[in-house]
Protein backbone atom coordinates (compact mmCIF):
# COMPACT_ATOMS: atom_id res chain seq x y z
CA UNK A 1 0.00 0.00 0.00
CA UNK A 2 1.18 3.52 -0.81
CA UNK A 3 1.93 5.78 2.14
CA UNK A 4 1.06 9.45 1.65
CA UNK A 5 2.25 12.38 3.75
CA UNK A 6 -0.57 14.80 4.60
CA UNK A 7 0.92 18.31 4.83
CA UNK A 8 -1.88 19.39 7.18
CA UNK A 9 -1.80 16.46 9.61
CA UNK A 10 1.99 16.14 9.41
CA UNK A 11 1.62 12.37 9.30
CA UNK A 12 2.42 9.74 6.70
CA UNK A 13 -0.65 7.55 6.33
CA UNK A 14 -2.08 4.72 4.24
CA UNK A 15 -3.42 5.54 0.81
CA UNK A 16 -6.87 4.27 1.88
CA UNK A 17 -7.43 7.44 3.92
CA UNK A 18 -6.97 9.58 0.79
CA UNK A 19 -8.79 10.30 -2.46
CA UNK A 20 -7.16 11.30 -5.75
CA UNK A 21 -8.54 14.54 -7.16
CA UNK A 22 -7.01 15.10 -10.60
CA UNK A 23 -4.32 17.38 -11.97
CA UNK A 24 -3.13 20.29 -9.80
CA UNK A 25 -2.57 23.98 -10.55
CA UNK A 26 -5.42 24.31 -13.03
CA UNK A 27 -6.76 27.82 -12.64
CA UNK A 28 -10.34 28.64 -13.45
CA UNK A 29 -10.45 31.58 -15.90
CA UNK A 30 -11.53 34.73 -14.06
CA UNK A 31 -14.17 35.62 -16.63
CA UNK A 32 -15.46 32.48 -18.34
CA UNK A 33 -17.77 34.46 -20.64
CA UNK A 34 -14.73 35.92 -22.39
CA UNK A 35 -13.31 32.48 -23.17
CA UNK A 36 -13.61 30.96 -26.63
CA UNK A 37 -15.18 27.50 -26.84
CA UNK A 38 -11.73 26.04 -27.47
CA UNK A 39 -10.23 27.75 -24.42
CA UNK A 40 -13.15 26.69 -22.23
CA UNK A 41 -12.99 23.11 -23.46
CA UNK A 42 -9.28 23.08 -22.70
CA UNK A 43 -9.90 24.29 -19.15
CA UNK A 44 -12.66 21.78 -18.56
CA UNK A 45 -11.39 18.65 -20.23
CA UNK A 46 -7.79 18.71 -21.43
CA UNK A 47 -5.17 17.40 -19.03
CA UNK A 48 -1.45 16.74 -19.33
CA UNK A 49 -1.72 12.97 -18.79
CA UNK A 50 1.92 12.87 -17.76
CA UNK A 51 4.01 9.73 -17.88
CA UNK A 52 6.41 10.42 -15.03
CA UNK A 53 6.38 13.19 -12.40
CA UNK A 54 2.85 14.57 -12.20
CA UNK A 55 1.50 17.55 -10.26
CA UNK A 56 -1.79 16.38 -8.81
CA UNK A 57 -4.39 17.03 -6.12
CA UNK A 58 -5.27 14.68 -3.30
CA UNK A 59 -7.74 14.93 -0.47
CA UNK A 60 -7.26 13.53 3.03
CA UNK A 61 -10.84 12.34 2.88
CA UNK A 62 -10.92 10.05 5.94
CA UNK A 63 -8.80 12.40 8.04
CA UNK A 64 -8.48 16.17 8.16
CA UNK A 65 -10.63 16.49 5.05
CA UNK A 66 -8.31 18.92 3.27
CA UNK A 67 -7.24 19.05 -0.35
CA UNK A 68 -3.50 19.33 -0.95
CA UNK A 69 -1.07 18.97 -3.84
CA UNK A 70 1.51 16.33 -4.60
CA UNK A 71 4.15 15.46 -7.16
CA UNK A 72 3.90 11.75 -7.90
CA UNK A 73 5.65 9.67 -10.50
CA UNK A 74 2.86 8.01 -12.50
CA UNK A 75 5.15 5.11 -13.48
CA UNK A 76 6.60 4.22 -10.08
CA UNK A 77 3.96 5.80 -7.77
CA UNK A 78 6.77 7.51 -5.89
CA UNK A 79 5.70 10.73 -4.14
CA UNK A 80 8.46 13.35 -4.39
CA UNK A 81 6.62 15.91 -2.26
CA UNK A 82 3.23 16.88 -0.90
CA UNK A 83 2.38 20.50 -0.07
CA UNK A 84 -0.57 22.58 1.09
CA UNK A 85 -3.12 23.91 -1.36
CA UNK A 86 -2.29 27.46 -2.38
CA UNK A 87 1.46 27.01 -2.02
CA UNK A 88 3.54 27.67 -5.16
CA UNK A 89 4.32 24.90 -7.58
CA UNK A 90 7.69 23.44 -6.54
CA UNK A 91 10.52 23.32 -9.06
CA UNK A 92 10.54 19.87 -10.60
CA UNK A 93 14.26 19.80 -11.47
CA UNK A 94 15.13 20.56 -7.83
CA UNK A 95 12.76 17.87 -6.58
CA UNK A 96 14.21 15.23 -8.88
CA UNK A 97 17.75 16.27 -7.92
CA UNK A 98 16.91 15.99 -4.19
CA UNK A 99 15.37 12.58 -4.76
CA UNK A 100 18.55 11.07 -6.23
Amino acid sequence: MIQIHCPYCGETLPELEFAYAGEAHIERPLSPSEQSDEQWAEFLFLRENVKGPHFERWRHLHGCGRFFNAVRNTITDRFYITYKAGEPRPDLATLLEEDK
Partner: protein
Amino acid sequence: MSKHISSLAPSVVVDTAAARVAVSQLIGRISLRARGDLAAVGNAIGVALPTKIGTCAKADGIEVACLGPDEWTLLVSLNQIEKVEDALAALYPSLPHSMTEVTGREVTFTIEGPQAVDLLSIATPRDIASIKVGEARRTLFDGATVVLWRDAETSFRMDVWNSFAPFLATTLETGAKELAAELA
Protein backbone atom coordinates in the same frame (compact mmCIF):
# COMPACT_ATOMS: atom_id res chain seq x y z
CA MET B 1 -26.19 -9.82 8.72
CA SER B 2 -26.21 -6.33 10.18
CA LYS B 3 -27.60 -5.56 13.57
CA HIS B 4 -31.02 -4.01 13.50
CA ILE B 5 -30.87 -0.26 13.95
CA SER B 6 -33.12 -0.34 16.99
CA SER B 7 -30.57 -2.49 18.81
CA LEU B 8 -28.18 0.46 18.95
CA ALA B 9 -29.62 1.94 22.07
CA PRO B 10 -27.04 1.97 24.89
CA SER B 11 -26.16 -1.69 25.27
CA VAL B 12 -23.31 -4.16 25.18
CA VAL B 13 -22.51 -5.24 21.62
CA VAL B 14 -20.08 -7.97 22.58
CA ASP B 15 -18.09 -8.90 25.67
CA THR B 16 -15.28 -11.40 25.32
CA ALA B 17 -11.94 -12.06 26.98
CA ALA B 18 -10.32 -10.13 24.11
CA ALA B 19 -12.45 -7.01 24.06
CA ARG B 20 -15.70 -5.46 25.14
CA VAL B 21 -17.72 -3.24 22.81
CA ALA B 22 -20.69 -1.21 23.99
CA VAL B 23 -22.93 1.54 22.66
CA SER B 24 -22.60 4.66 24.82
CA GLN B 25 -25.27 6.87 26.28
CA LEU B 26 -26.44 9.75 24.11
CA ILE B 27 -24.12 12.74 24.32
CA GLY B 28 -24.29 16.22 22.83
CA ARG B 29 -22.17 16.80 19.72
CA ILE B 30 -21.32 20.03 17.97
CA SER B 31 -19.36 20.38 14.74
CA LEU B 32 -17.38 23.62 14.66
CA ARG B 33 -15.52 25.26 11.78
CA ALA B 34 -13.63 28.45 12.54
CA ARG B 35 -10.60 30.50 11.51
CA GLY B 36 -9.01 33.57 12.97
CA ASP B 37 -9.34 34.49 16.62
CA LEU B 38 -9.52 31.01 18.11
CA ALA B 39 -8.74 32.37 21.57
CA ALA B 40 -12.12 34.11 21.52
CA VAL B 41 -13.79 30.77 20.75
CA GLY B 42 -11.90 29.17 23.62
CA ASN B 43 -13.00 31.89 26.01
CA ALA B 44 -16.60 31.53 24.90
CA ILE B 45 -16.85 27.79 25.41
CA GLY B 46 -14.57 27.57 28.42
CA VAL B 47 -11.84 25.42 26.95
CA ALA B 48 -8.98 26.49 24.66
CA LEU B 49 -9.24 24.93 21.20
CA PRO B 50 -6.36 22.58 20.49
CA THR B 51 -4.76 23.52 17.16
CA LYS B 52 -2.67 20.49 16.29
CA ILE B 53 -4.73 17.98 14.32
CA GLY B 54 -5.53 14.97 16.48
CA THR B 55 -5.06 16.66 19.84
CA CYS B 56 -7.83 17.10 22.39
CA ALA B 57 -8.76 19.35 25.27
CA LYS B 58 -11.15 18.85 28.13
CA ALA B 59 -12.90 21.01 30.67
CA ASP B 60 -15.93 20.74 32.87
CA GLY B 61 -18.67 19.10 30.80
CA ILE B 62 -16.96 19.63 27.42
CA GLU B 63 -14.43 17.72 25.36
CA VAL B 64 -12.87 19.00 22.13
CA ALA B 65 -10.89 17.27 19.41
CA CYS B 66 -9.14 19.03 16.55
CA LEU B 67 -10.04 17.12 13.39
CA GLY B 68 -8.72 19.47 10.72
CA PRO B 69 -6.88 22.78 10.35
CA ASP B 70 -10.14 24.66 10.93
CA GLU B 71 -12.42 21.94 12.25
CA TRP B 72 -13.30 20.70 15.71
CA THR B 73 -15.79 18.31 17.20
CA LEU B 74 -17.22 19.22 20.61
CA LEU B 75 -18.72 16.66 22.96
CA VAL B 76 -20.89 18.18 25.63
CA SER B 77 -23.28 16.81 28.20
CA LEU B 78 -26.88 17.02 27.01
CA ASN B 79 -27.84 19.75 29.46
CA GLN B 80 -24.92 21.91 28.29
CA ILE B 81 -25.65 21.93 24.55
CA GLU B 82 -27.74 25.06 24.66
CA LYS B 83 -25.23 26.94 26.79
CA VAL B 84 -22.35 26.16 24.42
CA GLU B 85 -24.46 26.99 21.36
CA ASP B 86 -25.47 30.34 22.83
CA ALA B 87 -21.88 31.15 23.73
CA LEU B 88 -20.74 30.42 20.18
CA ALA B 89 -23.70 32.20 18.57
CA ALA B 90 -22.76 35.35 20.46
CA LEU B 91 -19.48 35.33 18.50
CA TYR B 92 -21.09 35.39 15.05
CA PRO B 93 -20.86 39.18 14.52
CA SER B 94 -17.18 39.42 15.47
CA LEU B 95 -16.03 35.98 14.31
CA PRO B 96 -18.05 34.37 11.53
CA HIS B 97 -17.90 30.61 11.93
CA SER B 98 -19.95 27.49 11.37
CA MET B 99 -21.51 25.68 14.29
CA THR B 100 -23.83 22.75 13.77
CA GLU B 101 -25.35 20.57 16.41
CA VAL B 102 -25.00 16.97 15.25
CA THR B 103 -26.04 15.15 18.39
CA GLY B 104 -28.36 12.80 16.52
CA ARG B 105 -25.95 12.10 13.68
CA GLU B 106 -23.71 9.61 15.44
CA VAL B 107 -23.48 6.94 18.05
CA THR B 108 -20.38 6.16 20.05
CA PHE B 109 -18.95 2.71 20.65
CA THR B 110 -16.64 2.15 23.58
CA ILE B 111 -14.01 -0.44 22.77
CA GLU B 112 -11.84 -1.73 25.56
CA GLY B 113 -10.02 -4.80 26.71
CA PRO B 114 -6.61 -6.43 26.40
CA GLN B 115 -6.96 -6.81 22.61
CA ALA B 116 -8.77 -3.58 21.83
CA VAL B 117 -5.87 -2.48 19.60
CA ASP B 118 -5.92 -5.78 17.70
CA LEU B 119 -9.66 -5.47 17.25
CA LEU B 120 -9.35 -2.00 15.75
CA SER B 121 -6.51 -3.17 13.53
CA ILE B 122 -8.73 -5.63 11.70
CA ALA B 123 -10.42 -2.77 9.85
CA THR B 124 -8.28 0.36 10.29
CA PRO B 125 -5.51 0.90 7.72
CA ARG B 126 -3.78 3.42 10.01
CA ASP B 127 -1.36 2.14 12.63
CA ILE B 128 -3.28 2.44 15.91
CA ALA B 129 0.02 3.11 17.69
CA SER B 130 0.15 6.47 15.87
CA ILE B 131 -2.75 7.65 18.02
CA LYS B 132 -1.42 8.52 21.47
CA VAL B 133 -3.41 8.22 24.65
CA GLY B 134 -5.52 11.36 25.02
CA GLU B 135 -5.65 12.01 21.27
CA ALA B 136 -8.33 11.49 18.63
CA ARG B 137 -8.34 11.09 14.84
CA ARG B 138 -10.82 10.93 12.07
CA THR B 139 -9.93 7.79 10.17
CA LEU B 140 -11.40 4.78 8.45
CA PHE B 141 -12.90 1.63 9.96
CA ASP B 142 -14.17 -1.09 7.64
CA GLY B 143 -14.88 1.43 4.89
CA ALA B 144 -16.70 3.99 7.02
CA THR B 145 -15.35 7.30 8.27
CA VAL B 146 -15.15 7.34 12.06
CA VAL B 147 -13.60 9.45 14.80
CA LEU B 148 -11.45 7.38 17.07
CA TRP B 149 -10.60 8.61 20.57
CA ARG B 150 -7.87 6.87 22.55
CA ASP B 151 -8.64 7.22 26.26
CA ALA B 152 -6.06 4.72 27.50
CA GLU B 153 -3.68 2.13 26.05
CA THR B 154 -6.53 -0.35 25.65
CA SER B 155 -9.58 1.89 25.84
CA PHE B 156 -11.11 3.69 22.85
CA ARG B 157 -14.26 5.48 21.77
CA MET B 158 -15.43 5.38 18.17
CA ASP B 159 -17.94 7.95 16.87
CA VAL B 160 -19.87 6.46 13.97
CA TRP B 161 -22.58 7.91 11.74
CA ASN B 162 -25.88 6.21 12.48
CA SER B 163 -26.33 4.60 9.09
CA PHE B 164 -22.97 2.80 9.40
CA ALA B 165 -23.36 1.84 13.05
CA PRO B 166 -25.18 -1.50 12.72
CA PHE B 167 -22.69 -2.66 10.10
CA LEU B 168 -19.65 -1.63 12.14
CA ALA B 169 -21.15 -3.18 15.27
CA THR B 170 -21.27 -6.47 13.41
CA THR B 171 -17.64 -6.12 12.34
CA LEU B 172 -16.59 -5.38 15.93
CA GLU B 173 -18.64 -8.27 17.27
CA THR B 174 -17.18 -10.75 14.79
CA GLY B 175 -13.66 -9.47 15.45
CA ALA B 176 -13.96 -9.64 19.22
CA LYS B 177 -15.27 -13.21 19.04
CA GLU B 178 -12.51 -14.34 16.68
CA LEU B 179 -9.80 -12.78 18.84
CA ALA B 180 -11.29 -14.46 21.91
CA ALA B 181 -11.40 -17.79 20.08
CA GLU B 182 -7.67 -17.49 19.41
CA LEU B 183 -7.11 -17.03 23.14
CA ALA B 184 -9.09 -20.10 24.06
